[in-house]
């Protein structure tokens, strides 16, 4: 087993994403959902603008640790422009990855930096918070 260091989890890429405010905003009149990490009280809101089955815009608001913030930002970047169906596929693979199961690498291009999150069991929830909330946001279409 390759030893996973804390440097990989708190890498420059991840720190940059956590500080990047590009996706940290509200999208008015969008599908949204709120998520909460009960173990630390962190909250997040995901906004999706879906047009004809395609996610044309994604964003988030909330506070949380670096892992949860970076994860949210990367998620928004990846799913923007994808169809809802594609986003759901990615979501599935991401959850598998977080559980240390096998997953389809190709589908989650760009998330390699989190590929070893399952080795940090107490942080998995920080990472998956935005993804679970995405699932709800997708279901919240009206």
């Amino acid at each position, binding site marked *: 087993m390759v030893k996973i260091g804390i440097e990989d989890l708190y890498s420059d890429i991840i720190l940059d994403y956590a500080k990047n405010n590009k996706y940290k905003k509200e999208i008015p009149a969008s599908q949204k959902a709120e998520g*909460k990490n*009960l*173990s630390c*009280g962190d909250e997040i809101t995901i906004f999706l603008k879906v047009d004809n089955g395609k996610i044309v815009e994604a964003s988030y608001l909330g506070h949380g640790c670096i892992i949860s913030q970076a994860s949210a930002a990367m998620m928004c970047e990846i799913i923007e422009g994808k169809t809802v169906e594609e986003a759901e596929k990615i979501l599935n693979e991401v959850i598998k990855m977080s559980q240390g199961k096998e997953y389809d690498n190709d589908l989650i291009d760009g998330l390699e930096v989190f590929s070893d999150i399952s080795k940090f*069991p*107490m*942080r998995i929830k920080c990472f998956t918070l935005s993804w679970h909330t995405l699932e709800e946001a997708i279901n919240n279409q009206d």
Partner: protein
Amino acid sequence: MLSSNKYEEEFPALKRKINGHRLVYLDNAATTLRPKRVMEAVSEYSLNHHANVHRSTHTLASEATQMYESSRQKLADFINAKKEEIIFTKGTTESINLLAYSLAISNMIQPGEEILITTMEHHSNFVPWQQIGKLFNIKIKYFPVKKGIFEPDDYFNYITSKTKVISITGISNVTGQVIPINLIVEKARKIRNNVIIIVDGAQYIPHFSVDVKSLDIDFLAFSGHKMLGPTGIGVLYGKKEYLEQMSPFLFGGEMIDKVSMEDTTFTILPFKFEAGTPNVDGSVGLAKAVELLQQIGMNNINQHDKMLTKYALEKMKNLDFLEIYGPQDEFQSSIVSFNMKGIHPHDVAHLLNDIAGVAIRSGHHCAQPMMNELGVKATCRVSFYVYNQKDDIDILIYGLKKVWEWLK
């Protein structure tokens, strides 16, 4: 089964001498002896991995959380439940109190509805219902187990469309009678489909392989210390749909979503019902005990119990100075209650211990209503488990004869 010398290695108490005699431990319905591997697992957790669970992110906290949650998974697998349906409690008694209080405060029993229990129950499955019934004005109906033998057909007459909750033991802790839970579930659901069926598994789970899903019961309570695990740990299994509807019972840390001065919202299962720092030591020990039971095989345990019970009943029936209670047929498992004519059970138990090293229980077995049904104040009780062998029963018989000689 393991071979008997393996048991001696695994259970250090079996090597004890009582007044010069080898210990013959026949008080398993009260609590079982403890295997070495269980305490090794507890010590390993306790000395090298202990921390508070679920909250901190440091290494020990992460290890402790994983050990606690994998213990939960092991218990879930053991009875074929979902992980979030396993609530760790301190034992059967707390499990049933949790249920009684929570069903009452969640208003899950409507006016006019009843809770049905029986007079064969252990106090732990009797007094909580009786007292919470009084406190919250809920009607409790008592099925009389006449002469101490449970008759299913009579029982079914007590189940009506008003019966909201049934709570019943899987095995009588006094007579060892095995209650046909599957039959009860089937009949009860015909009378009222959504009746809540609770099984007191304190005596049942250590001896039978149980699948809560196929059995279709709603709640199941049991204790670690009666199945080779430590004291202070037990389980309440509950169907998710019910647990989600129910209000928490104990309030405190670890089970909270948000607390404000106005009110509190509660978090997800199973944590909603696990307020306070949990007994991680106990959970690790219980998981290890379950592992050992699975290795021996629940069906083997069951067969072994049956064989010993049959053998004991045969031998004991030959002693005309004994009065034996219970069905005395193939539906009696691992427990035999009896009295020596005219002799107080305490004297029998004490002498058996000192004369022959045989540990049995004497008293009302926390089942006074059942004592009333039997028309006695107290009984002697022998009860068997995996490490008992036929020669233990031979020594019991030898001891009983000696006691009778002495005291008759």
